[in-house]
């Protein structure tokens, strides 16, 4: 037996993302509404990138395009050099609302991806593992309406992570949580990223959140969104909210975002 067979290469947990000159528009009752304007963005494998911008600027649309839920009007999206043509369980989008299926228990919600691909019988254990990862084992049999907002969002994260995504797209996943839950969830998200090692793209309008979690912060303009600035955050984790450099960076970013954010 060869050495190569005995030592299989570890599975790849992250992918590089390449967004090339992507523009997009919506058709609103015959009117053309441009939302993305020539976005160029490269995300290295295993990186954590945050997209910041005014609300309604098109950040979420960009995530939908990366997820493959819609094709871009022009431009190209590549995952490890391969064009993205449709949704794929290796790229998972976590929405602002947990969007758990109310008719399924927490554990059946988490099992969705495996069930949809016919993997559930063989990989049932992964559902329990994912629930343990977000500390929801005790709520496996609960229905979504019995969960708090934070628990529901953790369940949505487990539903994404159970598929072992290489790219996790986070669309303001903590946006609707109360501030205490939000702080706790930011730490959890970071811990998961460090533990699992996926590439992460986070859309947020919270500058502090972006600075705490991401290696790179991309600032987008108002609609149609263009990339107006980019900041590297080369502070090791764990980061402190009151770190002098981060506070300074925060002020710079807020100035870039414009006068709406004082």
């Amino acid at each position, binding site marked *: 037996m060869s050495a190569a067979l005995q030592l299989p290469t570890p599975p790849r947990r992250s992918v590089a993302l390449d967004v090339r000159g992507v523009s997009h528009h919506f058709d609103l009752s015959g009117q053309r509404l441009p939302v993305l304007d020539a976005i160029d963005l490269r995300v290295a494998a295993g990186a954590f990138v945050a997209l910041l911008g005014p609300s309604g600027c098109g950040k979420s649309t960009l995530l939908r395009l990366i997820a493959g*839920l819609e094709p871009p009007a022009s431009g190209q999206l590549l995952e490890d050099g391969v064009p993205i043509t449709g949704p*794929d369980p290796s790229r998972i*989008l976590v929405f602002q609302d947990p969007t758990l299926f109310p008719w399924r228990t927490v554990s059946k919600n988490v099992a969705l991806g495996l069930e949809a691909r016919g993997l559930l019988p063989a990989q049932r254990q992964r559902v329990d593992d994912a629930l343990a990862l977000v500390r929801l084992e005790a709520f496996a049999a609960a229905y979504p309406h019995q969960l708090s907002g934070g628990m529901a969002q953790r369940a949505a994260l487990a539903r994404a992570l159970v598929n072992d995504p290489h790219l996790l797209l986070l669309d303001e996943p903590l946006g609707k949580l109360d501030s205490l839950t939000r702080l706790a969830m930011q730490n959890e998200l970071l811990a998961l990223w460090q533990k699992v090692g996926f590439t992460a793209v986070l859309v947020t309008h919270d500058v502090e959140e972006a600075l705490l979690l991401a290696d790179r912060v991309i600032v987008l303009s108002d609609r149609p969104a263009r990339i107006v600035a980019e900041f590297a955050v080369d502070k090791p984790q764990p980061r402190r909210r009151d770190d002098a450099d981060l506070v300074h960076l925060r002020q710079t970013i807020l100035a870039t975002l414009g006068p709406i954010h004082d």
Partner: protein
Amino acid sequence: MSDIAEAGARFAPARAVWRDGLLAAAAWFAAAVVTVATPDVVKWGSTELWAWIMLGGAGVLLAGAFAVPRLGRAGEAIAHYGPWLIALGVWFAVWEVTTAKLGWLPKPFFSPPQGLLHVYLVDSKRLAFCVLFSLRLWAYGFGSGVAAGFLFGVALGWSKRFAYWGMPILKLIGPVPATAWIPCTFFILPTTFAASVFLVALASGIPVAILTASGVGSVNRAYYDVARTLGASARFLVWRVAVPASLPHVFVGLFMGLYYSFAVLVVAEMLGAKYGLGWYLQFQTGYSAYANVYATLVIMALMCAGLVRLLFVGRDRLLSWQKGII
């Protein structure tokens, strides 16, 4: 200790007897006495048996008046129906007096309770056969109508092309009462039974189709996005996302269809069936046998209410996840 004993002694008599039970027993006893004490204006049959049933009821209620306070939870559940049991006793007594004893209500259009009882005793075989016949017709019609309506509705809600052709047809045919099809169906379809099944199916299928289509059409788009990013096939999106998400709508359609199906069932049976409760009603009216008519109406009420109850049980099971949402 003595305080507790004293308090117990003070409260015990109040709890020892179920007052409503005693009153109900008295009312039922009165109904029994009225039934035997005075002669019937005409012979209805089974008068004596009716008096015995009333007397038996009074006896049970009397025993219950003393037993219920000692039954705990079950006792409370029974006690809840106390006022109804009293009202029933009073109703039976009044019914008895106004029909059999004084003949105030005109014959043959009104029948005393012993008249109905007599029908159940004498004609039980034919009635049982009619119940089974009606249930069979209903089950075939409702079952096939609901199945077809549901599938049609899912297709309408899911496929734009199917909706393009199907929706105008449904909108045109849907509002026509199913009974309007009677003249054609009875000669288009080979047997009366097939025609009746078709009418019941049409009546129950159309609301199910409409509500299922609107349910599937109004499913939160985000559910589809979630399922698609998780690798769901179109088949999975239909059966595991669209259908369960629209089930609350489907059940509204099922309830509507259930009520329509009863209406059409009876009309269809009145028009040419050889058996069934609708036929029995029609047949007995022809002989002015109104006791038989009332006896059948009671059976019908119980049968239809039972089926509605059954659907509620099914809904509560399938939609238990809705608790807290609605």
